[in-house]
């Protein structure tokens, strides 16, 4: 089928989804033990959205994400070791420990970046697309954002301009059914948010966010459209957040009945099955054990890295004196 990932890509998607899952599981355990700092937002169950979408783009394309961005970071090719180092506040982290887990970025591979202001990634991607259009480059920009973010004013302003100017941008709405502890239907009167695309003169579509191949295809097609100069696309990926809002969430509002069907459709299971049919189950489980080893190594290295020492912000150095 047009725009499908190659077997090699599907393998890599699977690997990066597992890297993400293991990374978060270990962080989850460390958080419980009081070894992490600040809130951590896990994306267990949503890995297909962040990973497969980035895999459908080029390294030179720009991507930005939210407070819940581990799958996007790993998907775009950031190294687990430096991700962990940043989260653990080390000097070797992507931002030298200044950013933390919500604010990672690596401009050299177009990952600019995480953002803890809900909605802020949407105009950010539109601005990158504007830059691409002004410079006449062969690039696209993508924002991955939540159902909660879709209700912010900047979402509207940015999508209107993207539609108006036919900006090369992909709006990937990751509908995990929740904004914090509140279900989506308490935040918006419409269940399908992609229908709003019509109001911005751009195509809107709904996809199964737990199927990495479906995510890849939709993003690849939107990216081709954008590169042909036909403008923006809004893609709503339906998925589910398996792990509570953050490590400080006291839980209790996601029922077992609600979660059970999603557990069965865990994107890693879905991917393992599809990939198994192509390369055999043994090869699939090898990917998992390799990823396991890689993540363990990433933590080992990152945790032995040094903490940064304080320096004044250089650009404002002249007026940043204690």
């Amino acid at each position, binding site marked *: 089928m047009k725009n499908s990932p190659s077997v090699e890509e599907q393998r890599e998607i699977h690997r990066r989804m597992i890297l993400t899952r293991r990374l978060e599981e270990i962080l989850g355990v460390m958080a419980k033990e009081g070894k992490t700092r600040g809130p951590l937002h896990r994306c267990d169950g949503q890995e297909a959205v962040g990973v497969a979408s980035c895999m459908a783009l080029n390294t030179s394309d720009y991507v930005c994400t939210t407070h819940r961005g581990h799958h996007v970071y790993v998907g775009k090719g950031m190294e687990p070791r430096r991700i962990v180092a940043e989260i653990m506040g080390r000097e070797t982290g992507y931002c030298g420990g200044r950013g933390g887990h919500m604010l990672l970025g690596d401009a050299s591979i177009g990952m600019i970046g995480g953002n803890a202001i809900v909605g802020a990634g949407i105009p950010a991607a539109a601005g990158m697309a504007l830059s691409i259009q002004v410079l006449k480059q062969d690039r696209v920009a993508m924002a991955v954002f939540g159902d909660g973010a879709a209700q912010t*004013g900047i979402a509207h302003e940015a999508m209107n301009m993207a539609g108006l100017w036919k900006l090369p941008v992909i709006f990937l709405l990751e509908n995990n059914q929740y904004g914090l502890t509140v279900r989506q239907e308490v935040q918006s009167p419409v269940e399908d948010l992609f229908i709003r695309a019509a109001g911005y003169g751009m195509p809107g579509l709904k996809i199964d966010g737990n199927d990495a191949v479906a995510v890849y295809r939709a993003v690849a097609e939107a990216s081709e459209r954008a590169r042909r100069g036909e403008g923006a696309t809004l893609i709503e990926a339906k998925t589910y957040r398996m792990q509570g809002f953050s490590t400080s969430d006291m839980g209790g509002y996601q029922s077992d009945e609600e979660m059970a069907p999603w557990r069965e459709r865990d994107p890693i299971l879905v991917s393992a099955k599809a990939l198994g049919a192509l390369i055999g189950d043994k090869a699939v489980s090898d990917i998992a054990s390799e990823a396991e080893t890689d993540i363990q190594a990433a933590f080992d290295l990152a945790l032995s890295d040094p903490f940064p020492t304080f320096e004044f912000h250089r650009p404002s150095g002249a007026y940043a004196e204690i």
Partner: protein
Amino acid sequence: MAMMRYAEALNAALREEMSRDPSVFMFGEDIGRYGGVFKVSRGLMEEFGESRVRDTPISEQALTAMAVSAAMTGTRPILEIMYADFIPLCMDALVNQASVFGYLWEGQVEMPFVLRTQGGGGVGTGAQHAKSLDSFLTHIPGIKVVAPVTPADAKGMLKSAIRDAQPVIFLEHKLLYNMRGEVPDGEDELVPLGKARLVRPGRDVSIFATSKMVIEAEAAAVQLAKDGIDAEVIDLRTLRPLDLASIKASIARTHHAVVVNEGWTFCGYAAELSATIMDHCFDDLDAPVARVAMPDMPIPYSEPLEAAVIPNAARIAEAARRVLA
């Protein structure tokens, strides 16, 4: 008197005022069923229903504008903005709506709304979730800004704020919610807005502080006492309008001043305190006012970095020693 956590004191104030006046209602993100990220509104949706305690979409800009107009049309809205870092999204509603219409339509409308939010750093929430943006708010005419530190003040000032006819921004701090203290009983125990609180009298230097910095100032006073320096600590409580009388009286006694605020230094709230003191107390001062505030840079995440920027007792004590040197 009852012993309560700061968050519980706020909860009690909300419950009492909601019971007392059916025109009071609350809205904000996650405040309903979940009871708020800091659990300040726990149980209130159950008690007062979904119309008067609403979970909202993530729409700070419109929410604030709606608080303004709802307040002009017969209700007393209480809006919770989850982090003070999101105040920039509320600015148009405050600067171009609340401030403007309160003046232009004076006599025609009142504007009794409360915007509760919490700021401050210290727990690794990073550059977008740890700021104190007090000076953006205190710069706006026609809006009161308060920041209680004790549970008793939290309760008494929130009740006063809800009953006030003008917009009141109510600044909390994420590190205060679990602090405990005695809170007077009684539904009409109000703490007036606009009055500072003398935390600790002293003869040598006056330390004027806001929000969690009051606690740091108290700790600094203890350190200073060991060196024989007797510091007076004043909790301003209301950032605007300022209790100028208390400031003047204190400086007339001590002749030395340190001002402390967790916001950025340049054009920050501490700058106003310093300028106000210059305006009104220049002749009483034996040394320039020392400002203790956040260095002018975003708040870093990593523990050693964050610890290096947030003003603390040591920096306050050092500033006090400097003005006395």
